[in-house]
């Protein structure tokens, strides 16, 4: 935890004036944002807008974890990085990479976790770590012209394993390098992830039933909201008799690497 404040400074009141006058936010909501810590895992196409807008909203502490390098091929969707930084490791601005050996040292220090990663293994890792640590996980993903968003382990809703007890076959998993992505697609999903985390922080999302937001950028009707199952009693991690009570080897579990790059810098 980080030092909690019981009132906003005058500078904060000036800076966040247009949020403060919102009935849904107000002084109380802004103070909650100020006293909430959020962890953003992944500083690529999703993580960049997430960090920009969470910072702009006045979230008290934001941790950023990434282990990818800025590459000229993904610049178009990583608007937070300018071209001059090509080749600079994004971890410069991040605490450290996340893996089974350190996740439980990091996750419990935050109130809300945002999954902005690009691979299945890390998604299972974050899910299990968030269930074990009791943190909501705002999960976004993007590929080609499509995106998806769900909040896991929150408010009686499912965890990632409730929905996906078995990892997908490796040959069905397409990453952004192979499948491509239009840069603004993760921009849209990342912004909505930031909004969702803000809503959780100020208590606006507490009554919402578990749902999956499906974004189809190439279709005339771009957004649909689908109703999801609740938490499953027999889930191996969030169920009533969990068999997974500590983190496992997720690379092995998923049968593939933790990153969509061919030669990952770190393995989990």
């Amino acid at each position, binding site marked *: 935890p980080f030092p909690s404040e019981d009132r906003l400074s005058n500078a904060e009141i000036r800076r966040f004036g247009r949020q403060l006058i919102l009935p849904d936010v107000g002084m109380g909501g802004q103070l909650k944002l100020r006293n909430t810590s959020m962890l953003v895992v992944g500083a690529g*196409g999703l993580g960049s807008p997430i960090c920009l807008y969470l910072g702009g909203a006045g979230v008290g502490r934001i941790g950023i974890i990434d282990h990818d390098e800025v590459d000229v091929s993904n610049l178009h969707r990583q608007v937070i990085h300018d071209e001059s930084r090509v080749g600079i490791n994004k971890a410069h601005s991040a605490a450290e990479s996340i893996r089974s050996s350190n996740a439980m040292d990091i996750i419990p220090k935050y109130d809300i976790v945002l999954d902005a990663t690009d691979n299945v293994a890390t998604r299972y890792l974050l899910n299990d770590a968030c269930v074990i640590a009791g943190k909501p996980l705002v999960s976004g993903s993007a*590929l*080609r012209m499509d*995106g*998806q968003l769900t909040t896991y382990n929150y408010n009686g809703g499912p965890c990632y394993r409730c*929905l*996906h007890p078995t990892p997908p076959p490796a040959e069905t998993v397409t990453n*952004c390098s192979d*499948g491509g992505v239009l840069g603004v697609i993760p921009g849209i999903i990342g912004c909505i992830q930031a909004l969702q985390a803000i809503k959780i922080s100020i208590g606006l999302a507490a009554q919402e039933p578990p749902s999956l937001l499906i974004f189809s950028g190439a279709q005339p009707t771009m957004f649909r909201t689908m109703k999801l199952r609740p938490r499953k009693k027999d889930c191996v991690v969030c169920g009533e008799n969990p068999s997974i009570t500590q983190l496992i080897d997720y690379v092995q579990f998923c049968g593939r690497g933790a990153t*969509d790059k061919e030669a990952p810098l770190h393995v989990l």
Partner: protein
Amino acid sequence: MSINVKVEFSGGMELLFDNVRHHTIEQPAKSSDNQPTTLKDLIFYIRDNMMTEKKELFVDKDTVRPGILVLINNVDWELCDEIDYQLEDNDEIVFISTLHGG
């Protein structure tokens, strides 16, 4: 008697079907053994009549492969009997492949 079901493939699933997302599929209201047609019947119909290759990217054993979510009229099929759900005329079934990119 037959029913029409609207089927949508999303999240990359459509690439298995000539990049066509929306399909209207006619099914008999009753299966050959006079039972109501179920989602399982529909899945097998799709596999056997609408796919020529890579069938394993849609069906695994007797259900959809891991990584595919099924939605019946905008609701997670887990809330509606899953594979045993009895199809009704004009149902909307979405098969969506979970995305992992970021």
